[in-house]
């Protein structure tokens, strides 16, 4: 099985305010962008984060060959249970997702 992180050169995760996380999947080429749009299911992202499908927002931005994924932060930024103040490491969760 191929994981997203095996074929996409750059995935960036950032806080979008303390309550949201936004992850940009930079596919770089139009060919790879088309391939990832087809092979990356939104359900697999929801499963990776353990959240309902409806909680995941997905934007496919052709001009930038980029897919943007936004979701409520798995833990609110800075609460006692939070492990990553700037939210950058959540990109690793996406990298580990298997493509169909």
């Amino acid at each position: 099985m191929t994981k997203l992180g095996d074929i996409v050169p750059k995935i960036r995760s950032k806080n979008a305010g303390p309550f949201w996380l936004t992850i940009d999947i930079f596919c770089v080429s139009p060919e790879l962008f088309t391939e990832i749009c087809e092979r990356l299911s939104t359900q697999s992202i929801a499963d990776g984060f353990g959240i309902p499908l409806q909680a995941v927002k997905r934007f496919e931005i052709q001009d930038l060959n980029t897919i943007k994924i936004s979701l409520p932060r798995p833990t609110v930024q800075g609460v006692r249970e939070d492990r990553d103040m700037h939210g950058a490491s959540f990109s690793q969760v996406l990298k580990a997702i298997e493509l169909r």
Partner: protein
Amino acid sequence: MVRVLIPSGALGLGYDRAALARGIDQKPDIIAIDGGSTDSGPHYLGTGTSKYSRNSIKAEWRELMQARAEAQVPLIIGTSGTCGADSAVDWLVDITREIAAETGQSLKVAVLKSGQSSSAMKRAYQAGKISPLPAAPKICDAIFDDCTNIVALAGAEQIQEALNTGADIVIAGRTTDTAIISALPLLRGCHAGGAWHGAKIGECGALATTNPNSGTILIEFDAQGFTISPMGDNACATPETVSAHMLYENADPYILFEPGGYLDVTQASYLALDDQQVRVTGSEWVVSEAYYVKLEGARRVGFQTVSLVLIRDPRYVAHIRDWCADIEIKCTTKAQARIADDFSIELRLIGVDATLGDLDHDIQVGSEVAVLGIVTAATQNLSNEVAKILNPYLLHHPLSEQEEMPTFAFPFSPPEMQRGAAYEFCLNHVLTLQSPMDAFRLEVLDL
């Protein structure tokens, strides 16, 4: 036409001095810089303090004040002192007063405060004027009393009020990142979609260029859109670097909500004027029916003490979860018997899953593991007491009763480190205002 010079993404981050000087040569109409963000966590709003060192802020602010004196245009800072709370604004006003005295400048300074009292917020909440944004925590009346600081994010209207005083310098509390840049172009009748879009592209300085570290950019606003010109060496704006910046720290790549409406960049077009400059047109500003400002609040949730212990014995590394689970149960029971119920103990496994926790689906453990013990309790003293009860377990706890007492590695004496108060963000809401200045206070000082 209005030219806004943006020295860097935030005061305290540093910038290329030659780039700033080049920007001043371009005769800007205003110099605008951001002073903060929530991105470093709830501590700063909770305490009303700055993340950056006072010396760094003073050194950079002095240079910007000097640049302002040279250019003879207003200098504005938004979200002063990281969090934009009233105390952080006062802190920057003090620094400004010191610099004015040291450099012999006489200045008119407009101070815009964004702090909200809990009583006013309770009244607004009871009157139905506070509404949740997506993923907002549930709140009730009591939450406003719990907050050590509540701020409202000012938009362009409040900044314009401050600029209209004719001040040399505007020191603002919490504002949206964009409002300090869009305010003057909007005031002078530039294209509204272009003003907000250019402000979003410029809010992080040169981040929307090929050389983010150069810091300084100039944005020229006009009746149709805006043009971005990087001031640093080897910094180029391209249609890609500019359009990609809408992705940055923004949940929706096309829409940006601001007080009074939202920006829609779906139809924006990006044209390279040359190797360095990009012109953007076609952005749309959609006015909202009511005037909302976003609220941020932070409350204290307890006090923390942390301990760090290193585990190198391969058998303990292999059974590290069992070891921690046994300690958590035994230590919690002992601390409850000796102290009180009101505390929590968490052992976080550095080298296993400390970063992602349950979301880590690809764990690979190495030859050692660090265990970070995190105690949270109602007071610092209680938190220290529980951490000291935890100490002997972290030092000597055996995996089974049949074995000799092991000893693990503490890097410090004492191993307990007091973290002080812990805060959390507890508002993700908007406040409806009749008039933009209703929740803000403007004062003019002569320094």
